[in-house]
């Protein structure tokens, strides 16, 4: 079921008379209960698209529809009931506890004085529970780690009780365990609560694993699809084309393009193969079968020219001497 759709949406910036179009004629659909990751190189307009869809920025042309209403015709208050945001803006409020921050999510529902009903309190409690921060409910927000802070902001968005949540780079500044945790959390939330969750990220491998669908942004436009389809049809390779690196379809990561001028052949143990190839590529060796030297990988060592080496360093040193 589509909750948000764009119709020939053109995004960018307008200053007085001049318009800078970042992306023209976008036709995108966001569905309930799915996690969509917006990825693409810097400067293709990820933040601009997110800000435009969130109503923080005006579209240059075209329409954004939420259900059947046009976003532009909705009041601030109505928008706040439909879209909850998690932004990169730093939140720094003196004395605010986790509960206080999550309570901001109930802002559109409370009366003019900001008084809470029982329903408001219940929603806040549940939101905190969903991000597993119940124990830190009364802790000062300023004392939390970056990962916990991000979870608090997600709880705020949950408390807002909207069909759509949008997050701008929610995994930025986080270490790997926290990045994975946040992505898993968002994936679970979208499926459990039936909310449509849209996030922008630079974490390609995480997005490929967690996203139900991907919006792949390049200067040529936005391609939408299930992550694996976009890998198979070469969209990733086209989008991230460069002479310095390539999108490695085998593992969903980027690999660096080294100038590989020297040849070597490698056989043997499979588990060590991956790392050996990496080291060789970095040192400038291309692996081909008609090479002059052959490296055999054993369980605990490498054999080259009938000499045995126990570390990669020694192996590379020997290769350098041989090739010189």
């Amino acid at each position, binding site marked *: 079921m589509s909750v948000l759709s764009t119709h020939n949406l053109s995004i960018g910036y307008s200053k007085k008379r001049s318009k800078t179009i970042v992306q023209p004629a976008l036709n995108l659909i966001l569905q309930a209960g799915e996690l969509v990751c917006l990825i693409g190189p810097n400067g293709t307009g990820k933040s601009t698209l997110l800000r435009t869809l969130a109503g923080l920025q005006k579209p240059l042309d075209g329409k954004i529809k939420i259900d059947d209403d046009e976003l532009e015709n909705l009041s601030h208050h109505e928008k706040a009931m439909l879209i909850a945001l998690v932004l990169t803006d730093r939140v720094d409020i003196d*004395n605010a506890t986790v509960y206080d921050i999550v309570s*901001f999510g109930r802002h559109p529902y409370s009366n003019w*004085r900001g008084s809470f009903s029982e329903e408001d309190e219940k929603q806040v409690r549940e939101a905190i529970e969903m991000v597993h921060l119940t124990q830190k409910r009364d802790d000062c927000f300023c004392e939390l780690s970056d990962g916990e802070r991000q979870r608090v902001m997600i709880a705020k968005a949950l408390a807002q009780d909207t069909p759509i949540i949008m997050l701008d780079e929610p995994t930025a500044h986080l270490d790997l365990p926290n990045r994975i945790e946040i992505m898993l959390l968002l994936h679970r939330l979208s499926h459990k609560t039936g909310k449509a969750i849209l996030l922008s990220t630079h974490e390609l491998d995480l997005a490929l694993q967690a996203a139900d669908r991907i919006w792949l942004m390049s200067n040529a436009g936005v391609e939408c699809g299930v992550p694996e389809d976009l890998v198979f049809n070469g969209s990733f390779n086209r989008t991230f084309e460069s002479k310095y690196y390539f999108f490695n379809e085998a593992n969903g990561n980027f690999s660096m393009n080294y100038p590989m001028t020297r040849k070597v052949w490698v056989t043997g143990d499979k588990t060590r193969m991956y790392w050996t190839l990496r080291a060789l590529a970095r040192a400038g060796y291309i692996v081909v079968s008609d090479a002059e030297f052959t490296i055999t990988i054993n369980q605990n060592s490498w054999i080259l020219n009938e000499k045995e080496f126990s570390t990669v360093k020694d192996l590379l040193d020997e290769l350098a001497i041989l090739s010189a």
Partner: protein
Amino acid sequence: MQSRNFILFFSLSFLTMSLFLADLAWGSIHISLSEMIATFTGNGQDGINSEILLNFRLPKAITAVLAGASLSVAGLMMQTLFRNPLADPYILGVSSGASLGVALITMASAFLPVVLVNSGWAMILAAVIGAALVLLLVVGVSFRIQNAVSLLIVGIMFGTIAGSIVSVLQNFSNPDAIKLFVMWTFGSLSAVTWTYMQVLLPVSLIGIGMAFFLQKRLDGLLLGENYARGLGVPIIQTRFLIVIATGLLAGGITAFTGPIAFVGVAIPHIARGIFRTSGHKILLPATILCGASLLLVCDIISQIPTYTLPINTISSLFGAPVILWIILKRK
């Protein structure tokens, strides 16, 4: 938490009331509590003492309460709007704008009709217009730049421009007019007579009322403008209303009492420290009580020496250490 706040509010209210009575009692002539009660109930014996109490000390004490409350509330709104702990109407040039308005009225009076110069409305209008003008310029610029520090510099620059124009006016004015203006800059709570109070009181109350009306939106602004927008706060309208309220509060008070430094920046921090919250539902009444108390204390202190000290000096002596404390605490 609820009961702690209740006790704090109760104590603060009691403190404010005690200080109010102390402010009425103290001065070059001591007036006892029983004399006060007698005067207020209409059974006063001594004509001079009741005259001093009713027509001098009472309006002065009420002015202290109004000035303390208004400047603190204006400071709180500025700190929230700019998300800067050091923001206050004075730093952002609002008071300089008010000074410019008053300078024009006092020193350029030769070019204005006499009726206008002598009316309280003219003074308050000039100050409010001057204050609101500078604040509008600052907010106008704030739409273009995001950085709070740059915005602060912009406010200071507008203040400097206003100050320079005041200097130019002084250069062309006669000594009497200059003295009138300089006396105004010293700050004085006793200039407000009952006639002026009819202007000052509603202006302050409207400004404070607006702040209470905006309290939920002010809370939303704590998260930053983008988040606030996401929560349904109409940002442009809110900014505008905050500007108007601050212009009324800071401009109105400054017009009648002269600039009173540091109250606006220091009190919100004291209130946050006491109540350990950033929520405006608590902070608004808390700043009002703290601000009123502080200015009452300042007024009592300023009367201890035989020669009355300007209120601006006393409030700075109190406020400057608080700013230092904030900076050291924040590192």
